[in-house]
């Protein structure tokens, strides 16, 4: 079974994000880059499936040159190969462009199944898994927190609110976006880190994937025009006095200041 895992390199969740001076993105100087946490669930899902059913796990990542570090992390966890789309022509892709590139890799590699994170935690678009499935004309299940497969059928569970789970049977090949609870991602052990150094990494250009003009900033239908910090929230106000007086004051404030009543 050829298992594809899509992952994205994102700023560490503890990084303090600051917009760049020219508003074109974020200050990347001091950022520690990590594999998007939901994508780690996808890597683990891929590795577990390989352990059960055999085959190979191929991680695919689109981004600048540093994205190789994120792929190496997955290789150190146990993935077999990586495909890096760090060509200049891919940079600035919107979710549609990214999905076109990833879907083209999936076709070229002949993946039988694809796992990805439910969303990358940088821009939180939550679009790529669904668009890729659409482009490939495969079924997909999003926000999967339980996965079992038997032959060509996978049975997955996904949270649907109210503490309830939806059980979905999906025919493979299919795309699954993974969420918390699916598994406990393994860490990269020292032997794994060592082995990752010699695992193959392939690179494709847009031309290799016959995607000239369909990916990158020039093809983006969604354009990010500026970045700015959200306005600082005003601090809360504590009401004092007897409870009855506090209630009266609260109602007055909601009516006159907040104007919500």
């Amino acid at each position, binding site marked *: 079974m050829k298992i594809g895992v899509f992952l994205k390199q994102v700023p560490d969740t503890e990084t303090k994000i600051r917009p760049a001076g020219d508003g074109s993105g974020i200050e990347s100087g001091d950022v520690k880059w990590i594999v998007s946490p939901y994508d780690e669930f996808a890597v683990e899902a891929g590795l577990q499936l390989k352990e059960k059913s055999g085959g190979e796990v191929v991680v695919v990542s689109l981004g600048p040159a540093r994205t190789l570090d994120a792929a190496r992390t997955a290789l*150190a966890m146990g993935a077999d190969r990586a495909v890096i789309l760090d060509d200049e022509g891919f940079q600035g892709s919107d979710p549609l462009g990214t999905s076109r590139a990833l879907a083209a890799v999936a076709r070229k590699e002949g993946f039988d199944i694809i796992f990805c994170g439910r969303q990358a935690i940088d821009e939180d678009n939550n679009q790529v898994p669904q668009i890729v499935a659409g482009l490939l004309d495969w079924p997909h299940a999003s926000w999967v927190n339980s996965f079992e497969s038997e032959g060509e059928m996978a049975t997955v569970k996904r949270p649907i609110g109210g503490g309830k789970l939806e059980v979905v049977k999906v025919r493979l090949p299919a795309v699954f976006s993974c969420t918390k609870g699916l598994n406990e991602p393994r*860490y990269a052990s*020292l*032997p794994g*880190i*060592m082995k990752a150094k010699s695992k193959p990494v392939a690179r494709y250009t847009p031309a290799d994937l016959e995607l000239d003009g369909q990916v990158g900033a020039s093809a983006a239908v969604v354009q990010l025009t500026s970045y700015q910090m959200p306005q600082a929230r005003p601090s809360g106000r504590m009401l004092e006095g007897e409870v009855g007086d506090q209630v009266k004051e609260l109602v007055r404030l909601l009516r006159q200041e907040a104007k919500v009543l």
Partner: protein
Amino acid sequence: MSLNFNLGEEHVLIQDAMAKCLEPFRGRQEELKQSILVERKFPQDLWDAICATGLMGAVIPEKYGGNGMGLLSCAIGIEALAERGFGNALLVLTAMDAACILRNGTEEMKQKYLPKMASGEMKFCFGHTEPDAGSNAFRTRTFAKKDGDDYLISGQKTFITGADVADRMLLTCRTTSREACAEQGLPKAFGLALFIVDPKAPGIELRPIPTRGIEGMTQFLVHMDNVRVPASDLVGEPDMGAMALFNSLNPERILAAASACGLSKHCLDIAVKYANERAVFKERPIGAYQAISHPLAQVRIELDSVRLLTHRAAWAFDQDMNPGTVGNYSNMAKYQASELAVKAVDRAIQTLGGYGFSEEYGVIYYYEAARLLRTAPISSEMILNFVAEHDLGLPRSY
């Protein structure tokens, strides 16, 4: 362009592996603290979880079950563990003994021990110090007498850390006595030998010494009376063990320095957290006062200087640079790291005020651990002697 102060991506992954292997223990912090700091027992499941990362295989090539990432990787891992309050002397000693076996042992010996050391299945301690020999290894009296295909070892070792939980001990012995060397006009470095000995072998008696300062461990007086050891457990040649011994002390110092860096960072983290939360006058946290913040900033600056010294020493060892250079770098790192550790704990205690002495915060326990590092595995003064003599070219003082 060859100088690069960034850690490699693989080193960042090692730090990550250490953090993640400890995650399952997050709910057991109090129990672990009680066990390690108060009862002086390092839980076996914690040891197993650490070794499952492959950390102990760093100094061991793949051929012998390790991963060959090198001493720098091992040092970074040990620092990351100590940074979270999980320093362990047997990690240091097992890695040091593995490096010694790798460089000096027979093929048979490497096959026999290294894979089990790499996996963490076998812990090693180091039997070196004697009641009358330590800093001066030439005064070693423990004697290994040839008896057919075996050796019979008798003597006494003291302050042997973790001898009760170690599966083997790398033991410094004499195969020719000091007196015989003197009579025959042989150099004083002649006559030393290293053996691998099972601390539970017949003829060995372990007596705990009530010492403080080594977290999760007890130190022992090891009494040996005609302990039978096969010649195949002799590391290197008889009488020729001095170089192997001295070269093995370098990784011990480097890893001790890495532990000290981690310990310093651990105490700094505790102090900074407290200083950010604790308010005494008005609503401002005490960290706003420069009397609190400046000493912590100094510790932070010195921490980076010590890390760089430590990484340089480990790098030099991995590059197989000449032992004199590695020794000089190791000594410098270990000196500065132990001085910093004492300062870091001291400043943490001062920041925490009365809580600096509370068992709940635990900082006071680390004072002993940090202070011990100024004395062992080599004292600060002996390092200054070494640097003065070998680096500066000043006359020998002793």
